[in-house]
């Protein structure tokens, strides 16, 4: 049967290739995990940051904003909003929503406590200090 295309061979190549590349992915993931302490800013992963992340998630912020470029593209990138605007501005901004300007995009009012606002800012500050290989290209995100 030389020169033909046997199904058994195609099958063997599929199983071999799939296992081979999956193992490669697992090996690379191990290496990534062991290298993360240098880039993921875990030293600053405080209780306040963790509470902030929880608030970020339970208000579905990702449904409009991007964070490190991932999310919806309806509202500004927030991975670098801390260096762009500063903590006080962020808190004042959240408190003043929605603007109610006719025809403009609106952000809901979440009625956060002062503590919750501080937690959100802590989370955004921590996020902005992750080593993202110099992304985004500029401060506008």
């Amino acid at each position: 049967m030389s020169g033909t295309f046997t199904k058994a061979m195609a099958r063997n190549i599929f199983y071999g290739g799939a296992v081979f590349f999956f193992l490669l992915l697992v090996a690379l993931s191990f290496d990534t995990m062991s290298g993360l302490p240098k880039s993921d800013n875990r030293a600053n992963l405080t209780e306040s940051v963790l509470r902030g992340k929880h608030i970020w998630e339970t208000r579905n912020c990702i449904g409009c904003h991007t964070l490190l470029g991932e999310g919806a593209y309806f509202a500004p990138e927030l991975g670098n909003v801390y260096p762009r605007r500063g903590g006080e501005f962020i808190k004042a901004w959240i408190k003043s929503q929605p603007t109610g300007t006719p025809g403009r995009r609106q952000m809901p009012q979440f009625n956060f406590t002062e503590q919750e606002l501080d937690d959100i800012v802590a989370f955004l500050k921590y996020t902005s200090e992750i080593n993202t290989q110099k992304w985004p290209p500029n401060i506008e995100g």
Partner: protein
Amino acid sequence: MKYSSQSVAMPYFIAAIGLFVGQIIFGLAMGLQYVVGDFLFPEIPFNVARMVHTNLLIVWLLFGFMGATYFLVPEEAETELYSPKLALAMFWIFLVAGAATILGYLLVPYSTLAEMTGNNILATMGREFLEQPLLTKIGIVIVALAFLFNITMTLLKGRKTVISIVLLMGLWGLAIFFLFSFYNPGNLVKDKFYWWWVVHLWVEGVWELIMAAILAFVLIKVTGVDREVIEKWLYVIITLALVTGLIGTGHHYFWIGTPGYWQWLGSVFSALEPIPFFAMTVFAFNMVNRRRREHPNKAAVLWALGTGVMAFLGAGVWGFLHTLAPVNYYTHGSQITAAHGHMAFYGAYVLVVLTMISYAMPLLRGRAANDERAQVCEMWGFWLMTISMVFITLFLTAAGILQVWLQRVSDTPMPFMAVQDQVSLFYWMRLWAGVVFAAGLVTYLASFFVKGESKPLIHA
């Protein structure tokens, strides 16, 4: 239809199409919110509409995959389904859970929904595409396990063909990788890293197995080409998909706090990701050109060819467009990503499910194919939806290029919202293309109600 238990596929297909309609309605609402920002605010803010839009997509595709599996596996295994009752029970559980989740999104503030459903016990919500409450996630796992049990048992007692084995591997992979959605570490980088193990390994990994298997099944049926031939192609395509797609995960690890080497690994492997999609296109056309019979269901052949072409364009070409790290540095998280997402999901997964529905639905309704007029109506639906999706993609790409230019490349970068105003013309055009898409969907729905002489079952 050869086995009576295949008929459980019918409710799955109907539910899939129903949810598809819901997805498009919310898509239109969001398209309008992009240009009239306060539309429906505060009743349905953008984030809620988007969550409904994307979650409905995922759920209806899952319904479609399950329906396709219930139709395909008994026929391939040459035996009745292990338990049609279990399949029907799971249908209702999944439908009720899905509907309850969507209603929860719409009627209850998201943070309240999170508290009500145990998110404080195990926080998994609030991450893109994985917004479902913990209870829903657990429900998905249970439904998936019952479904896989049913299918695996069917396969074990029947003939084991390559198509059904590949399909089953894809479905098992789908269930297994979904488990990563329960892992949500506080460390944002780890969170994002494993989030992709669900999202990427689904759509650029195991879903491709499901898609290729369904396409292969329909092609065997409508072209009459030798099974041996089609199965070899199937192996080649899925090998290429996994060889490129597994390490291709790296194209999501460029800018999220992961080591720099992913820029090289991700770029090289994901640059090769169009190859399996290209092979799939060649495969579909090759088989149809060498067909050994003229199947009366011409619409199904059109959907199958459309899947090949649109998957290659959307996933292959539009994916390649921004997958190289130096390009992605500027395009990451812009409207270019949205353009790619729309055409890739439509071309690969929407179309493959509709291909299966187009082939199976007439058989489930007791005929080999629909009346000529019904088929013409269905094909109008195909062309309207497909062409308008091409335009949606082109307008979003144009918006994205302009956005990247003004906001990222320029020496004097403009703020996000200022740029959004600059590109709003393209958003208006995208909205109108979306309206045409909805018209296409209505045409497609109408084709199910066109009366006429149906082709008898003899040729099936």
